[in-house]
């Protein structure tokens, strides 16, 4: 996907990056900050971009003593490198995002990306213990530190979460790590329509909760390559072997009682299969698809899913969806039969969805499709404060103008 505009600069140090920002800011050049570019489809494309500044070379481990369970890395480190670095010591940071080979730690945090396992482990923001950011005027500013409890002034780091490069550039990220679970297991079960409600009720009462519980419809090619099943349950279990084994027994018996035909267990490929569900969230089909994410409470997720299904039928679009039973997220990819239809349907689709549901964000789609719609919808009640923060941090509007909610 072509996302960047103008020259691309790849600074080698945080100071260099800050200097480039200062230079651009002083000369009125608009800057797009770029990590791995995997979430450029989230939010609005920037209104203008003269220079792209990449964090690709800020990818080193800065501080890591495994016994402290904390790590500081350059914001441009990929999620895969972070995971591999920590895995050598049996540790991890639960940041679930698409395409970890390219996605960067800084970019994922700045995008405010959140994944299904947050129901169990919390959000990426909950692991963020400190940052250094380069502000638009070239100031390098740090907050937090390398300790896991810290109440020293404002938690400035949090403001950069969800800022999408409009407030400053994260250059260093300090994270809290936790011990990796001993075992990871995926259970997949086809849920024929008639068994669905009963199965979900049973699952809600299990004594061992899965690390994530997804109901997937469509996305066949993206996730499991199977066809012809219209809905399936996707559960991830993590923990000690004994606990995961007990969870599996309980699950099989619950699903059996609900009349679900069979359950597939994956141990070897659990991580890879789980990653495919994450990748699916932002996967696009040329100029034929647009993906929305609906935020809400878990207990009305199925209602929102049904609403989006009805909308897809009305607009003669097909729908791939991942419903997260524990967090309430519904990721919905609407697909048109051909590339000619979608540009006409996309505005009706987004407007129609917003008439029926609040808090919907466009998270993936071809830039040509996204140009016609507002990715965010109505701004939140705190919008005036957000706008004023932008004004105070980036008074010249240097950083990714228009990329964030309400045209920030």
């Amino acid at each position, binding site marked *: 996907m072509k996302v960047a505009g103008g020259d691309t600069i790849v600074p080698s140090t945080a100071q260099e990056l800050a200097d480039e920002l200062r230079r651009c800011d002083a000369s009125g050049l608009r800057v797009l900050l770029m990590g791995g570019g995997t979430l450029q489809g989230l939010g609005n494309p920037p209104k203008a971009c003269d220079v792209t500044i990449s964090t690709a070379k800020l990818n080193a481990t800065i501080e890591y003593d495994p016994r402290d369970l904390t790590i500081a890395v350059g914001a441009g480190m990929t999620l895969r490198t972070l995971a591999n670095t920590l895995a050598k010591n049996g540790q991890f940071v639960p940041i679930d995002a698409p395409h970890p080979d390219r996605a960067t730690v800084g970019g994922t945090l700045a995008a405010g990306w959140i994944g299904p396992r947050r129901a169990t482990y919390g959000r990426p923001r*909950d692991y963020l213990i400190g940052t250094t950011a380069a502000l638009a005027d070239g100031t390098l500013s740090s907050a937090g530190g390398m300790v896991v409890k810290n109440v020293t002034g404002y*938690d400035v780091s949090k403001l950069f979460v969800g800022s999408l490069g409009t407030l400053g550039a994260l250059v260093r990220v300090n994270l809290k790590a936790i011990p990796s679970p001993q075992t990871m297991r995926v259970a997949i079960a086809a849920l024929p329509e008639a068994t669905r409600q009963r199965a979900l009720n049973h699952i809600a009462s299990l004594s061992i909760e899965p690390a994530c519980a997804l109901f997937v419809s469509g996305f066949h090619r993206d996730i499991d390559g199977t066809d012809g099943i219209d809905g399936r349950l996707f559960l991830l279990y993590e923990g000690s072997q004994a606990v995961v084994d007990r969870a599996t027994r309980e699950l099989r018996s619950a699903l059996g009682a609900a009349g679900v035909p069979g359950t597939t267990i994956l141990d070897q490929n659990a991580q890879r299969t789980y990653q495919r569900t994450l990748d699916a969230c932002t996967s696009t089909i040329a100029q034929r698809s647009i993906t929305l994410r609906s935020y809400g409470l878990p207990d009305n997720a199925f209602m929102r899913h049904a609403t989006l299904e009805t909308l897809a039928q009305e607009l003669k679009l097909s729908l791939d969806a991942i419903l997260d039973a524990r967090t309430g997220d519904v990721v919905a990819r609407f697909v048109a039969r051909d590339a000619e239809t979608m540009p006409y349907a996309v505005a009706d689709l987004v407007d129609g969805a917003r008439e029926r549901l609040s808090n919907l964000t466009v998270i993936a789609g071809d830039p040509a499709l996204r140009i016609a719609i507002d990715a965010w919808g109505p701004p939140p009640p*705190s919008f005036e404060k957000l706008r004023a923060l932008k004004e105070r941090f980036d008074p010249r509007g240097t950083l990714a103008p228009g990329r964030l909610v309400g045209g920030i």
Partner: protein
Amino acid sequence: MPPGLAASLIDAIGPDAVKTEPEDLAVYGYDADTAEAEHLPDAAVIPRDARQVCAVVRIAREHGLPIVPRGAGTGLCGGTVPVNGGVVITFNRMNRILELDVANRRARVQPGLINLDLSRATATHGLFYAPDPSSQKASTIGGNVGTNAGGPHCLSYGTTTNHVLGLEFVDETGELIRTSIDDPGYDLTGALVGSEGTLGVITSVDVRLMRLPESVRVCVGAFETVEAACETVSAIIGAGIVATALEIIDKVMVEAIEANYHAGYPTGAGSVLLVEVAGHTEEMNHNESAIADIARKNGALSWTTARDAAEREALWAARKGAAGAVGRIAPNYYIQDACVPRTRLPQALHAIDEIARDHRLVVGNVFHAGDGNLHPLLMFDRREVRQIQAVVDAGTEILRTCIDMGGTISGEHGIGYEKRETLSMVYSTADLATMGRIRDVLDPARRFNPNKIFPTGAICGEVTSSVA
């Protein structure tokens, strides 16, 4: 008091909600850290709802007065003391759970709700509110949000900020604004947590509730030295065991605690380690024996597991009441709060010991070892002027030492009034200026809790009461 203030407040929120007599105001000059009420507010108000808080903020603004929100006054750094006078807003009447959503495991609560009351109210639904500062029997959710309060269970569950899903606050103009961590854009919720009342007045909090664990074990071991207990903590973490709490109590403190509470801590040893693990039964059985092995390998003199809930609760009650037992050692104590990377704990403790000795002070330690969060208690007698200065000097030296070890000056108590001059030991002028930008946006007149957190001159233009 500025003319017309009392009348405006009474007119807006009723006579029973406004206090202006010096004898009524004296109590608002203190927190748990303050010895004498040197600073009194011009007025204290006890609003019933968010709308009344808005009215108070507008009135204070019209009179050009500071606004100081206050929870239960259990703070340990002078954070709620009205050092510039003004209007103290207290939340005794805003102490309800507004909504309890069991299915979605969340609750909307008023800021004056007492921390422990939330977990008590949700227990019947198999849920609990995880942050549990030692003050939880008295401290409020709003106050906890203000200081991003921690507690022994942060190790596994995180601090207050990890459990706040959204807030409602009154801004500097007196408008109510609601935030959610699901809102698009900058994480304003996250920036407000831990801002110690300097960015707005919080009027409701959306909290995350967690499922009560299936099984809980609490073990206690005695060690020859504090270092041995620290090594055990490192080894437990190194083995990848997720404990829900890892607390160390040194000899000085364990003797005082046992004499006071008879909770079952082993006395006579150099230190005691308290370990809690929680989760599914199979995992607990395994973790319990693995931890016991680690403890023995690290020289545990004894190692026992609490037999039942009553024994567990007794151990925890005594641990959380540790500061209350200090009266057996000295008439006064000063509790410091600092954090170091976990591996630096033994050196930090050694340094604290030396600093105390240099200043001829008795020091006791009771701390969240798993988090590297230290709480040295410096014992003294307020009637001896030399000792007061010694405590102040020793406290600052301890903070300096922790910073030099890569740590910081507050893990969970906050900066407040007491530590504000030390904040520049942690952050550069540029770092503080960035925080100032946030203040510029949310509190441009520096009306909310002025003269807190930031060193003098770091953030200019704070409001002072006309009479204070």
